Each structure stands twice: as C-alpha cells, then as structure tokens.
C-alpha cells in the first residue's frame, strides 16, 4: 500500500504496555476517514502512543456470482482490518483514532465505529479527489461533524483552496487544512482543526 507508515510517532511511549493509564477517565474517539491508500494509518501512526492495533471486522454482504448460471445468489463474508491508535492527553482524556474506510459497503461497520464519535477527519488525496466522494457522503449522512485534511504527496498538483472546496462540494464553514500525515505535528494540527471546529459548533448552538 502506498501509504505504508514511513515514520513512527514522536509520541510513542517506549515500554508502555497496552493497558490504559490509571489516570484515564474519559475515552473519546475521532474517525480518520478516507479511501484506501490515502494515509489513514500513516496519520494514526504519527500520533499514537501505542503501536497502532487493528481488529478484523467481518462484512457480510449479499453478492451475485459473476458466473451466475444457476441464478443463485450467495452470501459472502469478507474481512476488513480496522486500524486504531491511542493518545493519552493530560487531564485524563484518552483520544482514540479509528481509521475508517468510507465505501458504502462498509455502512453497518461504519455506523458501529462512528457511534459516540466526536467527529471525523476526512483525509483527501488531491491526486484522487473522486475517491473521497463516497466518504464525504457517508460522513454527511451519518451527521458527524468533520474537517478535511489534504494529505500532501510529493507529486500532488497544487489547486487553489476555492477549486478544492468546489470539487469536494464543501460547505463554507467546513475546515480544510493541508497535512503531511507522516509528521506528528502536522497530524496534530489537522486534528486540532477538527476539534476547534467542534468547539465553534458547540458554542454556536
């Protein structure tokens, strides 16, 4: 996969086991959503205090065999790996980041992971903008507040902010930031853009 982590988090706690710190009081989550290969795992890896873990999730979907001579519909089960990482923040808050694929076929899994999430950071590769439409549609359908982070690749073309906003059909209030998902500080800034958006929204209501 093109987005294989090329660096690990500057926040990794060497020797710390998987157990929650004793100070953990509130556990919150943010979805890091985007199409395959956009850099979700890279971003999570760049800020997680634990080596990102993953769960194997079963997707059951009705599918029609290509060679459908008998007209039999069969049910297949596919497995998708969902990566997640963790950041213990001062003050007893533990933030979990869940890498979430956004295709419509992941809908039931999406709903389960999104339950109780603060919001979503939608990662977009500007070389493949169309790939992000499904994710954005799903986030909006779920009603999760979100911010867009443009993961910059060396060969990304440069567009103006207006061009990108128009292409992604973003509302004026939706934050959009550039981000290098390999860099801890850059990933934190992208998460901060989302959290600030959430704060502004909660103040506005």
């Amino acid at each position: 996969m093109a987005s294989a982590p090329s660096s690990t988090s500057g926040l990794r706690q060497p020797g710390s086991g998987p157990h929650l710190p004793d100070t953990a009081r509130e556990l919150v989550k943010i979805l890091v959503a985007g199409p395959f290969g956009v850099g979700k795992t890279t971003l999570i890896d760049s800020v997680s205090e634990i080596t990102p873990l993953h769960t194997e999730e079963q997707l059951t979907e009705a599918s029609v065999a290509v060679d459908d001579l008998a007209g039999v519909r069969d049910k297949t089960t596919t497995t998708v790996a969902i990566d997640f990482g963790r950041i213990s923040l001062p003050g007893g808050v533990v933030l979990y980041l869940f890498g979430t694929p956004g295709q419509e076929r992941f809908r039931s899994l999406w709903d389960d992971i999104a339950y109780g999430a603060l919001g979503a950071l939608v990662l977009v590769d500007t070389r493949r903008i169309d790939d992000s439409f499904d994710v954005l549609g799903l986030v909006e359908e779920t009603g999760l507040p979100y911010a867009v982070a443009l993961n910059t690749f060396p060969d990304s073309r440069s567009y103006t902010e207006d061009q990108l906003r128009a292409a992604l059909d973003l509302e004026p209030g939706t934050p959009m930031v550039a981000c290098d998902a390999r860099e801890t500080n850059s990933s934190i800034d992208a998460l901060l853009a989302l959290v600030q958006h959430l704060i502004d929204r909660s103040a506005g209501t």
Partner: protein
Amino acid sequence: MTARRTGRPLVPAYLSTGGVATPRRGSLERLSVLAATDQPVPQGLPAAQHALLDVLGDGSLTVVESAALLRLPVSAIRVLAAELTDRGLVTSRPPVPAAEPPDPDLLKRVADGLRALKH
C-alpha cells in the same frame, strides 16, 4: 488498512464464544472499559473467557483493544465480556458520560491536550 496478518488465530472466532452470536446485554461499546475483578476464577471456565481475563491482567482495556490483542472480532469480545460480567469476573464502564452534542468543556480539554503534545 493493513494487510492481513499471516497465521491464524488459535481459536476461530465462531468457536470463541461457544456459538453465541450476540451478547445478552447490548450496552458494550468499542471503547467501553473492561477490568477483571478479584473474584477467584472458577474451574472449567471456557478457554476464550480465560484468555480475555489473562489479557486484562490487573489493568484496564477497552473492548476494541482486547479484540485486537486477542485477535478476535469486536463482536466476540462483546459476548465474552458479557458472560464474564454475569459471572462477576469482569466489570465494565462506558467510555464517557453520554452527552449529545459532546460537552464543550471536554472538547476544550481535548484541544488543550493536543496542543500540549506538539513539539
């Protein structure tokens, strides 16, 4: 996304719960926090329930972390944890006091905490 690991888990997911597909209680979230109690572990506890107790040790883990460490689906952990809770061997607590929309003070502490991590 990561590539599938090589090697199969010791216990197939469908056997880990003894064939039970849904937990009796529906309240465990991915981030619900599990911890073992100090009750003595009874003889003959199913191996998968034992494995969950072992991974919890004397600390706390979320449902999703337990699933990742045991290489079982989240749904299987929900079943196992519910059974262990019924036996008094595990306690669980929800991740945050439920609030919709999220508490502004909590959001502010997340933002402050993230800022403090920058270097």
